[in-house]
């Protein structure tokens, strides 16, 4: 296997992009990534999208997107693993380069979520349709059941949980690509409307249109294209049960733990070596559970530690310098790649006011559904 580097990144605006279609936002990100990498041609494209069919009635993104970024003829694949579609596309693009099959591969993700009104039913297709969604449970509802049990078992208070989105928004202020680059207070969270008790609107990541792309090539070729290649040090992927009720322990995310273990093993690194991590905080409680599974905090202690600021600048580890899904936005299929984009910006030292000092190793964690699939990447500054 060859070593692989990221040589270019591109990201669209994140938000309610009423004037742009799914192909417009993908093209914006892809062309920007190709320009950033100084390349004109790609060998293959992997595009992650959770549900372009239900959101926009458009499938067959492999053909559509390669054509509309001027790469007709290149190999193209659309990858789906619910909210982990982007991270999955990254893993497969990485494998294609590492294996020697191709030299220049684009890994991208896109979701156009504001073309429909009843998005809840579409998101719920990532849960078990016959045994969960049939009974009316929503995604906020699934994570709310995790939050309820975590608070019951470990004594985390509603006020402590509210600190998580407050910190995310603080980080997003310094991210020009964020959907919500402004601060909120604990009071904003506690007074926002109930979505699924105990989760309120400000515990939930938003509905977002957006796309993100990165360009991969063999590490030995990377210097031909950029002065600041970022190495893809390791990837770990795993699956868990699709239904939350089938988790052995409702609040343990086995797929996340397995994916992280595999990435740590492949890289020879441990949690102490990681300088920052972009985690899949689709809901406030998710950031806590994931930070524990990744090994940054002991089980049951992550909630209070994060509420005390252990996940921000000056704490144990910087979590979601980008603002995370909560404040940067969560275009579902694009999120896994947007996390890679943030990691590359940090490892290049180009993050401005949100720069994590002396960042050497960055991790990304992208998760599908209520923990049914997970992809973890570790990237390294060279």
């Amino acid at each position, binding site marked *: 296997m060859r070593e692989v580097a990221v040589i270019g990144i591109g990201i669209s605006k994140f938000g309610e992009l009423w004037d742009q279609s799914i192909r417009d936002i993908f093209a914006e990100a892809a062309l920007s990534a190709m320009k950033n990498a100084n390349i004109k041609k790609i060998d293959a494209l992997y595009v992650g999208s959770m549900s372009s069919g239900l959101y926009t009635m458009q499938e067959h993104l492999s053909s559509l997107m390669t054509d509309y970024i001027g790469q007709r003829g290149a190999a193209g694949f659309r990858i789906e693993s619910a909210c982990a579609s982007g991270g999955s596309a990254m893993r497969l693009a990485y494998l294609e380069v590492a294996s020697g099959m191709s030299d220049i591969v684009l890994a991208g993700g896109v979701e156009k979520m504001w073309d429909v009104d*009843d998005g*809840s*039913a579409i998101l*719920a297709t990532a849960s*078990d349709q*016959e*045994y*969960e*969604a*049939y*009974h*009316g*449970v*929503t995604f*906020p*509802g699934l994570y*709310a*059941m*995790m939050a*309820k*049990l975590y608070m*019951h078992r470990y004594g985390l208070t509603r006020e402590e949980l509210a600190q998580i989105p407050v910190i995310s928004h603080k980080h997003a202020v310094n991210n020009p690509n964020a959907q919500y680059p402004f601060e909120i207070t604990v009071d904003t969270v506690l007074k926002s*409307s*109930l*979505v*699924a*008790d*105990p*989760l309120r609107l400000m515990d939930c990541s938003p509905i977002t249109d957006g796309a993100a792309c990165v360009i991969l090539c063999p590490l030995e070729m990377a210097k031909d294209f950029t002065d600041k290649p970022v190495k893809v040090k390791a990837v770990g992927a795993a699956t868990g*049960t699709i*239904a*939350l*009720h*089938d988790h052995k322990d*409702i609040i343990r995310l086995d797929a996340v733990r397995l994916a992280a273990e595999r990435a740590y093993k492949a890289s020879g690194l441990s949690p102490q070596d990681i300088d920052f991590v972009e985690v899949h905080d689709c809901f406030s409680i998710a950031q806590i559970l994931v930070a524990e599974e990744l090994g940054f905090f002991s089980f049951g202690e992550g909630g209070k530690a994060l509420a005390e600021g252990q996940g921000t600048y000056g704490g144990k580890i910087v979590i979601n310098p980008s603002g995370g899904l909560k404040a940067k936005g969560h275009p579902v299929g694009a999120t896994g790649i947007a996390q890679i984009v943030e990691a590359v910006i940090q490892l290049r030292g180009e993050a401005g006011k949100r720069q994590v000092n002396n960042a050497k190793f960055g991790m990304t964690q992208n998760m599908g559904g209520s923990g049914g699939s997970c992809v973890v990447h570790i990237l390294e500054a060279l």
Partner: protein
Amino acid sequence: MANSQRYTREIPHRYRLEAQKFKSGFVSLSRRYVDPETGEQEYEKIILKGTGTILTYTVIYVSADAFSKQTPFVIAIIETDEGARLTAQVVDCEPEEVRIGARVELVFRKIINEGHSGIINYGYKAVLI
């Protein structure tokens, strides 16, 4: 929306709580072919008694459109006395009465109307006992 085939093949578990008990003792309400822990493929069919305990729950205030007339409603993860896990609404009570650890019984109820010309969906819901 489901057509009649998709709906009727789920009737055994939804109407009658037909489940599978594998050799290891693992019980699944969802139709499976393999015991996820042991890999064993042999099982016997059992009918769940319908009694169980709430492991966790939530009150849904914002739902998919098909459920919007029912909000707010309680959804719980329940472990039946046989050990099967399932997700179901908890009804005939105020949300404040629901607790982690509360005992429930599954009953046969209407779930939703699937639009004007769709199927009326039935299945299990839980009541406190």
